[in-house]
């Protein structure tokens, strides 16, 4: 049994005291980060990456810490959705629809426990799915040549732009912006400098961590300054926590369905957890016989999006690890972590560094149980975190970002660049141009160009080489569909209105 041997290897890595402690710390940090409104998983992971380097962690340890933060944030995101009607992170938005009304009825505790259990089901099954599917996909990925990789990158950008954004032109601009930034610096195949404007600071290109922390964390500070830090008062009070067994059992099928949908959504490169929770909620609502409860605190409306978004979080790790193409904003940040650690994700990772992959998977299995404990019996503790006012939280985030980036390079130029990206992120947000494609462009731009150029070297400049294998053609078709289909589906895929406070 290959799988069991691999798992044994994984657990032998995961059960060392350091790794275990890191997974635990990651879960706690992640839940806090997820629960804090305005500090989503991508922000949280982004500002922690530079610190994990200065801490001197090795590849497996850093990856375990950050992925536990990622999983934890997915769990924690629901806390502020339910208690404040503000999603702690983007994928938790659908949880506000039924979670907050249920909390208003004085059943905040029930909603938190139910969603915690749903998160657990989704995340655990998705981790098992990751365990089973990733090695298979890694074997398929061996058949990928440069032409296939080019098509795959294109597919990621198309689905991300098509599904993740309301306006394709704006998404395309975001992608081009990211790809353009990736071109700055020394061209790897000829050694020429491009677009540096003669500045020595830019010869190495722009460090993607600087861009990520700027676009996510620093931009968030500006958004909060504009909004005056309002929306941060606690909405409902939390009574004693008890376990609503009846509702958990009643929604068990909902959770399983939502997990499946979420996992598949997570697998799509460029789609991610937001799509997972959205589809899970919409499917559950449209398949329910009695729809009247939805939007008013229906338990199914809480279980479905939470199971969906946590399953998608696990699913999104599959393309990230096997193909090096992230499925969401946060997995893009995790990819940045891998690239900085000098680990190339892809099929070779599974054969050459099995301890990294399987150690990660085993740690995630453990992390899920830790998170269940943190998020069900101890949820009351974490709900206190919501009372931290933005006027303390955001300056803290800023300072952590600065010190993190400063500790990486020690140059004030990177800090200025980060502020620049923060301003850019704010302006983009105002213009509703999505920031995630920019990040993905910066991360993948170099690889995309290299694969295109290699393909052209192999074919001696013949463009039809890009379409010469069934896999490549399939990916091209999927890319075109991913880009165009949402145009027609948009009228069907409208998000329901969020619950409004009457008082």
């Amino acid at each position: 049994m290959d799988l069991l041997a691999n798992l044994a290897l994984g657990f032998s890595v995961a059960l060392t005291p350091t790794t275990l402690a890191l997974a635990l710390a990651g879960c706690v940090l992640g839940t806090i980060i997820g629960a804090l409104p305005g500090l989503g998983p991508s922000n949280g992971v982004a500002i922690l990456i530079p610190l994990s380097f200065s801490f001197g962690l090795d590849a497996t340890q850093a990856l375990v810490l950050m992925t536990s933060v990622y999983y934890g944030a997915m769990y924690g995101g629901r806390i502020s959705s339910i208690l404040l009607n503000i999603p702690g992170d983007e994928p938790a938005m659908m949880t506000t629809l039924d979670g907050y009304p249920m909390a208003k009825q004085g059943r905040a505790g029930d909603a938190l426990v139910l969603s915690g259990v749903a998160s657990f089901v989704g995340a655990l099954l998705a981790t098992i799915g990751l365990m089973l599917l990733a090695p298979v996909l890694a074997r398929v990925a061996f058949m990928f040549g440069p032409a296939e990789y080019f098509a795959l990158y294109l597919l990621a950008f198309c689905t991300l732009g098509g599904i993740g954004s309301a306006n394709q032109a704006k998404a395309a601009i975001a992608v081009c912006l990211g790809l353009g930034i990736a071109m700055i610096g020394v061209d790897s195949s000829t050694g020429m400098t491009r677009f540096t404007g003669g500045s020595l600071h830019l010869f190495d290109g722009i460090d993607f961590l600087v861009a990520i922390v700027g676009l996510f964390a620093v931009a968030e500070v500006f958004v909060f300054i504009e909004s005056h830090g309002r929306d941060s008062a606690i909405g409902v009070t939390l009574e004693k926590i008890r376990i609503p067994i009846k509702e958990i059992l009643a929604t068990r099928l909902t959770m399983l369905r939502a997990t499946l949908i979420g996992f598949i959504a997570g697998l799509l490169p460029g789609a991610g957890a937001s799509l997972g929770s959205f589809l899970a909620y919409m499917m559950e609502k449209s398949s329910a016989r009695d729809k009247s409860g939805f939007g008013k605190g229906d338990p199914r409306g809480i279980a479905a999006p939470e199971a969906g978004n946590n399953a998608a979080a696990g699913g999104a790790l599959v393309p990230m690890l096997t193909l090096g193409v992230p499925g969401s904003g946060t997995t893009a940040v995790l990819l940045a972590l891998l690239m900085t650690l000098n680990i190339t994700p892809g099929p070779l990772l599974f054969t050459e560094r099995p301890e990294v992959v399987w150690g990660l998977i085993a740690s995630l299995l453990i992390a899920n149980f830790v998170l269940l404990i943190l998020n069900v019996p101890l949820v009351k503790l974490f709900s206190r975190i919501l009372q931290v006012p933005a006027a303390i939280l955001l300056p803290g985030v800023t300072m952590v970002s600065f010190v993190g980036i400063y500790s990486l390079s020690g140059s004030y130029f990177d800090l200025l660049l980060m502020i620049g990206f923060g301003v850019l992120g704010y302006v983009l947000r105002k213009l509703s141009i999505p920031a995630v494609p920019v990040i993905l462009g910066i991360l993948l731009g170099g690889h995309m160009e290299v694969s295109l150029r290699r393909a052209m070297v192999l074919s001696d400049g013949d463009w039809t080489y890009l379409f010469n294998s069934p896999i490549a053609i399939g990916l091209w078709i999927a890319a075109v569909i991913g880009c165009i289909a949402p145009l027609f589906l948009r009228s069907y895929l409208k998000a329901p209105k969020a619950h409004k406070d009457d008082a």
Partner: protein
Amino acid sequence: MSDRITGLIVSVLALAFFAGASQLEMPFFADPLGPKAFPMLIASVAFVAGCVMVLRPDAEPEWPSLATFSRLLIAVLVLVLYAHGLKPLGFLLPTAIAAGAISYQIRPTFRAATLTGVCLSFGLFIIFKYGLGLSLFALPRWLMG
């Protein structure tokens, strides 16, 4: 209107990027595509997308009022000064001032902001220096001797 202006800026930048790419010299031993082609491809896509934005703008976003805008400007200025000050002035003083200033921009009460700045500065210094082992200097180096 914002979308039209942005679209215009994007298109102009795309043209500039295209021009910049086409100026690159082809090295003698280059691959069939060379270093120009991919940047030119990106620029073309960006140009088209920019034009689409000019022709089909979305609804106008809600821009901040002049007062809010000046608060944002102050915040950016504070951060830029912080970036320059971090090395020569040590960690504690610039961090306290910058954190306090940002806090004041979010919630303008002087006492709370000062307290936030000082506490964050000391708290983070202890965490970074002794918890994570980063090499930070608390005070300006000329004071430390």
